[in-house]
């Protein structure tokens, strides 16, 4: 089975994010004064083969712990898209 995993990697709340601060400054310069905070992160999309959903999820967890995120400074969230039982139609074959 082929699965699609979305991995969101973000700096831990205690870690300063100079890029986010700079982006916030840019938004303020454009007049978007209501923006209180911007945190920048990474978004990775993985397409992988696995026997089932559990295996896919645990493999992506392992990949994220080992390489995709650095636990010293980053948190992560994984969303797994699995094929629908019916085999799915156009673009509708995936559910979160």
């Amino acid at each position: 089975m082929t699965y699609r995993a979305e991995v969101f990697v973000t700096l831990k709340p205690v870690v300063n994010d100079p890029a986010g601060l700079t982006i916030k400054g840019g938004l303020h310069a454009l007049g978007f004064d209501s923006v209180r905070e911007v945190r920048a992160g990474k978004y990775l999309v993985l397409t992988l083969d696995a026997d089932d959903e559990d295996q896919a999820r645990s493999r992506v967890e392992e990949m994220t712990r080992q390489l995709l995120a650095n636990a010293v400074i980053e948190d992560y969230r994984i969303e797994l898209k699995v094929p629908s039982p019916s085999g799915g139609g156009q673009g509708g074959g995936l559910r979160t």
Partner: protein
Amino acid sequence: MNTGIVVFPGTWSDRDCAHALSDVLGQPARYVDHREERLDDLDLVILPGGFSYGDYLRCGAIARFAPVMEAVTDFANRGGLVLGICNGFQILQEARLLPGALLRNASCEFRCEWVNLRVEQSESAFTLDCRPGQVLRIPISHGEGNFFADPQTLEAIERNGQVVFRYCAPDGRVTAESNPNGSLGNIAGIANAHGNVVGLMPHPERACEDLLGSTDGLALFRSAIHALDRVAV
């Protein structure tokens, strides 16, 4: 002192390191390919600066899994001398051979300039020839050198005397103005608990000749030579 200089795809300071070791100090040095698995012939391993694997994902994150890094880890754990410079420092942290992480500079700018470093301790293999409080003038060249560690780790590093270099004013005062990248505690370089592994953001290999504006970087390499002499005796 037999030195190995590790070359990853994207490493750029390897030749500067080789020049400092061989041409300036007259020490044998060879390049170590990132696929090599044996480092038995070496006394010192240098992970030089650059942009290994394009700095993709995080600086040092991919290099950390190159075949040579298993050998470097064994070498370090056996007490071998390891120096990580700039990107090499980032790789040592990704490999968990040194604590903490290096974030994007607080200014979001790439900083390429001369800095002053206060030597915090002369116990590490790379500061034996220095005295605590001594100020070294050495250049930096990085976009992600903003030292970070969680409060407990930072406290432990400080308590154990693992902070080796701090950014400072020319007179040795550690000030906010002399911090080029936002590093916690103005930390520019740290050692592992045994002092045989050191990582720093500044480039000592670029401060080894008067022609380049400073010879202060030699102190690190000469210290390593003396550290080996001390072990041999």
